[in-house]
């Protein structure tokens, strides 16, 4: 069972992602955050949480997805989570910027098939 953290300012999207993850029966949502700053604080305090995957929204009011990635890349973990940026638009410049951070990029909504393909990329 893989451990997932979801960060999205939209409560409906958080619930939606959580349901898709739970229904896959291959992963579970450990934590959900509506405020990326809170998520960052949590990761700082839990470097040994063994998170496999982070679903991160790109457009958020207090801290954008890329701003989050900048700060996140400074942290060190016992297990480095794979970041997957979830966004409503498929902007090529944002896709290539995500790649620079070694992050995956996918347009919303999160689907069962995409979740399965991304979970396959996460090492055991």
């Amino acid at each position, binding site marked *: 069972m893989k451990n997932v953290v979801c960060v999205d*300012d939209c409560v*409906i*999207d958080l619930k939606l992602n959580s349901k898709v993850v739970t229904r896959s029966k291959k992963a579970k949502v450990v934590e959900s955050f509506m*405020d990326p700053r809170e998520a960052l604080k949590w990761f700082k305090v839990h470097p040994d949480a063994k998170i496999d995957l982070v679903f991160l929204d790109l*457009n958020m009011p*207090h801290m954008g997805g890329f701003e989050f990635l900048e700060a996140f890349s400074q942290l060190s973990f016992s297990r480095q989570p794979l970041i997957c940026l979830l966004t*409503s638009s498929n902007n090529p410049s944002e896709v290539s910027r995500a790649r620079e951070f070694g992050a995956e990029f996918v*347009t*919303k*909504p999160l689907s069962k098939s995409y979740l399965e393909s991304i979970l396959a990329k996460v090492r055991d």
Partner: protein
Amino acid sequence: MHYLEQELRQLVKQDEQIFRFVEEGCLDGIWYWDLEKPENEWMSPKMWETLGCDPSTKRHLVSEWQDLIHPDDLATAIENFNSHCRDPNAKYDQYVRYRNGSDWTWVRCRGIAIRNKEGKPIRMLGAHVDVTEIKTLQLETAVQRRELEERNQELSVFAHAASHDLQSPVKSMLGIISLMKEDASENDHTDLEENIQHLETLALRTQRLTNALLTIGRIQNTAPMKKLGRVGSFTEKVWQEVAEEYEFDKQSLEFVGLNQELNVDHDMFELMLRNILSNCIKYRHPDRNLKIRVAWAEDQVSRRLEIEDNGCGMTLEQCKESTIFFKRFHSASDIEGSGLGLGIVRQIAKRHGASVRLEPKLPFGLKVVVCFDGEES
């Protein structure tokens, strides 16, 4: 050589009137410079008239035109003159500005050095053509082009943001529908009510956004129907509506000096106030009783409508970023809104030659200032 050209050249040599006609008809001034006694330069009367001067007051001295030419252009002219003297193939040809009263006259100034047998320049013959009209048009066109480029850039950013924000709730709806289909196939109705509620929320968000986009389009494409109206009457009417809509205490609002009359489009002005006042309610602080103060202020610098509250407020950085369309400072789930409210306020102000600025208010709250004298926001 064509016989007519030959005949004309002969005529110019013989008949003074022909030279005068060419000078008057084709040129806006002629000058002839003695490079051996460089303080001496003959300048035609028409040259001075073109520059708005009385020729009888002007002496045939280089200093006369050098006093009038724009310093930057004098530097260019001297550089070109030196190059032309060194090399006849280097053209003496430039656009220069001469002071003409309080304005500038643009002149295309061309010249040719007359050289002695050794090739040393001893005289310089030059011609002026007044190009002020063309230059003015060129400058105006350049300004308009820059403005258009800026507007295009703004539109491009706006279109991208609008597309993203419109797609966002639609994509969430598709995700929910996908889960609902899965539930239906398994005859599982556990989440049905919650999913319908989510769909309704997302549909309403889409509706709010499309309405706001339509409003912006209408403001941009409709000329304001300006009529005189009292600021206090607008504020009172809009506050009644907003307070009722949000079921809010009407006493929260304080009016100061709102007897001022303004020549504005009443519908647009009321929409502007509605956006500002409803923001005061939406962004109120949970631990403080909301107080809103609407005041008219004027001094020698500007005339301003100031709306301040004791709500959540904004940082200076957020105030600066508030000019960006769709910029949200709160989660869509926390506070409803399209992210276009302030954009609508700014568009309406712009249509009235006014501007809007936001200021953090100490110790807490926000002040929205609508300046009616084109003061920069």
